[in-house]
């Protein structure tokens, strides 16, 4: 077993753990942050599988834009709820 395979298994197990944390956490904002962490680990995993094109796209969209849009949607809905 080479060192790359060990890193691959560690990254995969960490992704599963963060996925379960994202489901179980109480605050929605923490859930969004855990999803962003899963995307970052997926980038590492794609690089280990030698797919740099997919890794670049995942880094930009998965952990950048989608997280920002989730956070701002949460922010907006919370503000509208407070008025009522």
């Amino acid at each position, binding site marked *: 077993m080479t060192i790359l395979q060990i890193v691959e298994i560690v990254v995969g197990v960490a992704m599963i753990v963060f996925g379960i944390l994202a*489901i179980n956490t109480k605050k929605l904002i923490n859930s969004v942050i855990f999803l962003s962490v899963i995307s970052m680990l997926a980038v590492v995993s794609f690089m280990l599988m030698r797919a740099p094109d997919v890794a670049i796209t995942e880094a930009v969209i998965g952990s950048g834009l989608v997280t920002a849009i989730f956070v701002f949607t949460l922010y907006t809905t919370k503000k509208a709820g407070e008025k009522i």
Partner: protein
Amino acid sequence: MKQVVSILLVLAVGFFIFSALYFPNQGDSAFDSYGEVDLDERVSSSFIDKNVTGENDEVVFGESANLEDGSANYVTSVIVNYRSFDTLGEVTVLFISAFGVGLLLSGRRKKQAFAHQPNFILKYGARLVFGIMVIFGVYMFSHGHLAPGGGFPGGAIIAAALLLLYLADNDFRAKMKAFKVTEGIAGSIYVILGLLAIVIGGYFLMNFLPTGIVGTIFSAGLIPIIYVLIGLKVGSEIAGIVDSFLTVEVEK
């Protein structure tokens, strides 16, 4: 209870994936075991050797000239040349989702006021980083045929640069009309190039321009042109979505 069920589900799915990929095959399985595939039997080897229409010699970086597809990055040569019609469909899916967001969040809108007031350094530092990010995005989609990257991540990087300006400046609001015009023109030119290829070569979206030496910047015929169009289209679409999400409707 919920945790136990979810962990059991993950273990079951993991067992099936591992047993399909890594254990030796018993009889007729759906997959060959990992690392034992004969690539010469697969269609992908003719995409890599660039000999779908005929026999080629070995492709050498920086020497081979006038191949049927001159892209050095063969992911790009599959996405934009051999399977370009799929990419047109993909761009259409993204257009429909941007159209749906625009339809739901339409009307007169103003910038959402954040709780924090950005200070001087954040405001002007973001403008500096904005320029660098836009240049990196343009590099990404103009060098898609040479290096990893391409139109989709390039456009997304440009949209992320715009998101940065939205976050760092409370008064900033992009001119959305220009983005919509850019998106429409880029999408139309993509389809027009495809129709032009029917007239010249006989197939939709055929690579009808001459391809130069593999590895130089003017090397892949139609691929850089189409990737620049896709980059502009994706960038303006995602910028439109970001603008819709970061504004609120004006109350009458």
